[in-house]
């Protein structure tokens, strides 16, 4: 009990029951806390374990619901063991469980047993981005004709505002192809994983969509999402990918609903 709690208050008959019960809920090394009992002198060990089990299993279930393709790749047993380590290492800090698991892809990268699957972390990143997009704020995407209304001499200065659902996941592996193949229940053919693939996740209306970005596309969109003007973003994309196709990328990003609005007339 902190000193402040003692000032001007009745001393608590059972000080800090959450502090007593909490540690063992996540860490199996802790013994059954003192102060809790079963009826008629019965032991509280299995009774307390009901809470331990509820906490860990429900959080593992939440991870399985958020990362179904990752679980399909690893198999249920592997996934649940990995998620159990994750839940114990990084328990949720928000009661909104659909926001849980943002550190899971980084955790997978460090998880020893997942090393034979170097594409797994990026696949999980696509799944996490998918869930972010699913719950993102409702906003209409930029209308197709909006850019056509800008006089050509001002195009290079146009600045875009991101749609709340937009996410980009860059990977040295075919993370998107692996995600798509494993997200459903159908048969999965062999995928040559070691080909870089950049994923664009959007939700122009209610349905989350994923698509592969063309060469230079990720660089281009990342610049635009950071608020760089169209001309600068295109120049940067061309520097990194000589076969960057500006017209194709602009059409693609408008169709996908990457942006909510645009500002013509200079930097914000």
């Amino acid at each position: 009990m902190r000193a402040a709690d003692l000032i001007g208050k009745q001393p608590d008959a059972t000080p800090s029951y959450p502090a007593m019960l909490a540690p063992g809920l996540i860490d199996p090394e802790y013994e059954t806390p003192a102060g809790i009992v079963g009826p008629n002198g019965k032991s509280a060990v299995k009774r307390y374990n009901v809470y331990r089990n509820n906490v860990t299993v429900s959080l593992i279930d939440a991870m399985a619901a958020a990362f179904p393709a990752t679980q399909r790749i690893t198999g249920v047993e592997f996934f649940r063991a990995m998620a159990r380590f994750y839940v114990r290492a990084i328990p949720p800090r928000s009661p909104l469980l659909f926001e849980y698991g943002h550190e899971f892809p980084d955790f997978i990268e460090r998880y020893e047993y997942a090393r034979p699957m170097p594409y797994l972390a990026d696949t999980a990143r696509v799944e996490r981005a998918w869930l972010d997009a699913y719950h993102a704020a409702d906003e209409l995407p930029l209308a197709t004709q909006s850019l056509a209304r800008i006089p050509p001499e001002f195009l290079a200065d146009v600045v875009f505002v991101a749609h709340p659902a937009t996410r980009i996941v860059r990977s040295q592996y075919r993370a998107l192809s692996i995600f798509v193949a494993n997200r459903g229940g159908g048969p999965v053919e062999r995928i040559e994983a070691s080909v870089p693939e950049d994923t664009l996740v959007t939700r122009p209306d209610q349905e989350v969509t994923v698509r592969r970005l063309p060469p230079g596309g990720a660089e281009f969109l990342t610049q635009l999402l950071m608020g760089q003007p169209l001309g600068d973003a295109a120049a940067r994309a061309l520097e990194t990918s000589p076969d960057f196709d500006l017209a194709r990328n602009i059409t693609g990003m408008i169709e996908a609903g990457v942006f909510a609005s645009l500002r013509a007339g200079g930097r914000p």
Partner: protein
Amino acid sequence: MNAVTPIGNLTPHLRLRFPAFSASALAGTSFKHEHLQVIVDQGKHEGFFEVHAENYMGAGGPPHRALEQIRTDHPISIHGVCMSIGGQEPLDAVHLERFRALVARYEPVLVSEHLAWSTHESTYFNDLLPLPYTKATLVRVADHIDHVQETLRRPILLENPSTYVAFSGSTMSETDFLGALVRRSGCGLLLDVNNVFVSATNQGFSAVDYLAEFPLSHVGEIHLAGHAEQTDDEGGLLLIDSHDRKVADLVWALFEGVVARCGPVPTLVEWDSSIPEWPVLRAEAEAAQAILDRHASDNCRSADAGR
């Protein structure tokens, strides 16, 4: 073109206005997204739906579309699962504001939370954890309920928990504790009859005695659900509040006893895992409705007066 010119469609998402409904004397079910299509296809029915508040605290997207569709034709109840009202720390102001906004947006007929805690030192445990029943916890829980009710500007219903352990430091019974909370905070109660049965079995008391002591005139909603069976350290029966199957016969019997005493109260059948096809869940609600209808002329006032 020096001025910043906003171009593009900036129309915000249209917020729907919902009709006013009553859920009095109605039975309802948990709302699960896998049932949305069949519920919509079958059209309006007499009954209400309950949702866990946290599932609709995302900024937007399909969950809100689903809830809007359901709310257009039916009364809904918003059931908070993780306010941690029974905790020792002050309530999470951000979470409380999200809760307020959700209630303001969907105008539910019922709003409820749990006598339990789920967050400690910023770790969220995703379970309804128990607290000792003492003067000190009573004062704090009542303060937390006041805080919620002042924020929402309406009373809430507080649910009795399923428990697996007791605290050697408790100095009050659960029913006395709940009664005192009602007097101090003006909140109502959500009587979960399955929780009473589960706790009674696990803690070795009589469910009938517990219900006899329960402040029934303050019950604004009843919950029913299925439970699973395990064993304790001594090999005795230990019940788990699993919400994954039909309501047990003995729980139905306790429910009928409660309704006979206090008359029909909005009653919800909860089913949160191993979700069945819609007709199975709906049939459970219809069974509850039949019991409510049988006691349509009873009411709490006369039941209390006769005690």
